[in-house]
């Protein structure tokens, strides 16, 4: 298959990439851009490990063809914060022990961030409802929900 040139914004930087039509966004992010935050979990849209923000909305990079996001804006966990300057939600995850093996964490953080943008003061039920597409095999949900809830409170003040 012939490669195509696409232009997209990843974590605020404009990138030009050459991709095949059947290249998945997830693999382009990981293999071509070395952004390892988004993970391959199930590959069929059940687990949320590959969550990224597409034009600010959560989406699953394992079910998106890279060619289709031409001109769009992608945010991965690497665009949310780094070791030096953690995003407040990342700090909240650390404070609440919401990270165990860490595999689901990038997805959880991006979904949590999208939720808080949409609804700054979600209830516990609303948080759980929003997180239902993100699985944590360590079953650390209670801490994850608490961490997001703590940020909701912080916004309330």
């Amino acid at each position: 298959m012939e490669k195509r040139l696409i232009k997209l914004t990843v974590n605020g930087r404009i990138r030009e990439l050459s991709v095949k039509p059947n290249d998945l966004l997830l693999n382009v992010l990981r293999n071509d851009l070395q952004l390892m935050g988004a993970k391959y979990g199930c590959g069929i849209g059940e687990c949320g490990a590959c969550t990224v923000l597409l034009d600010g909305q959560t989406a699953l990079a394992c079910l998106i063809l890279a060619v289709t996001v031409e001109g769009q804006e992608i945010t991965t966990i690497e665009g949310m914060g780094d070791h030096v300057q953690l995003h407040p939600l990342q700090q909240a995850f650390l404070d609440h022990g919401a990270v165990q093996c860490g595999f689901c964490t990038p997805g959880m953080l991006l979904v949590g961030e999208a939720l808080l943008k949409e609804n700054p003061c979600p209830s516990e039920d609303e948080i759980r409802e929003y997180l239902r597409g993100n699985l944590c095999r360590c079953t650390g949900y209670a801490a994850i929900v608490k961490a997001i809830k703590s940020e909701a409170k912080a916004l309330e003040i």
Partner: protein
Amino acid sequence: MKTDTKILASEFEYLECHTLEEVLDALTRYNGKAKILAGGTDLLTKMKTGALHTEYLIFVKKIESLNYLISDNNTLRIGPMVSLREIEQHEQIKASYSALFEAVRSMAATSVKNMATLGGNLCNGSPAADTAPPLLVYGATLKLTSSRGVRLVPVEEFFLGPSKTVLASDELLTEISIPDLGENVGSSFLKLGRVAADIAKINVAVCIKRTGQAVSYCRIAFGSVAPTPIRVPEAEAMLVGKELSNELITNVAQAAANLIKPITDKRSTSHYRQQVSKVVLEEALRSAWQRTGGEL
């Protein structure tokens, strides 16, 4: 081909369209060898697992003229590229089209709903498609467009069997329209899955119009109990002209359960589906009736 969901192994020629004309031209040109890609949540999963192959893939999600949600003289017109999430968040749908709202709310996770489209949910042709029963009870019409022209098909006639619809190989679904429901109308949707956001073991939608204390219009539709989403007209007829009572609800639900012939598959047995259909229908009838402003 070995199944590996980490990559999409299948190869195809890709075409991105930005206008309806381009899609229709391409569909005619590729003559049955093309598939339409919108949200991709069903299609790419099928392609990854090898359940579906296509020579040409036409990407249509970015066609702006197919992405709208407007109320026109009380007719709700929805473009097929509208995402499930947009439907869920639409105030008018939440207020006046409870069955459709509840169906979309019960579906998948937020990320999937951001990607998936209403048109895709219908054209995928699943007997378990959650948006189908609500559209059936609302008497919605689908506009199918090809280079040959436009035809309007009632949702009832759209589905032919699992993954089969009346959509011809050169046609594209271009609008879903829900007619004016009028006053004192209530609708509801209920589904039973293993966990929230699951594919339905069984789903049901009800739409009732109340005139005085009596039912003047009633539609009941089930999903996951036949090769296509279906209505049960015999059960609907039992309600029309009657005042709703708990006894009548029980009788109608029993009658409906006898009318459906679900299959046994990995999600449920036929017997179980028949038994629980009564419970979900009773509950859906009550809730729709209450929404008409009726009392029990």
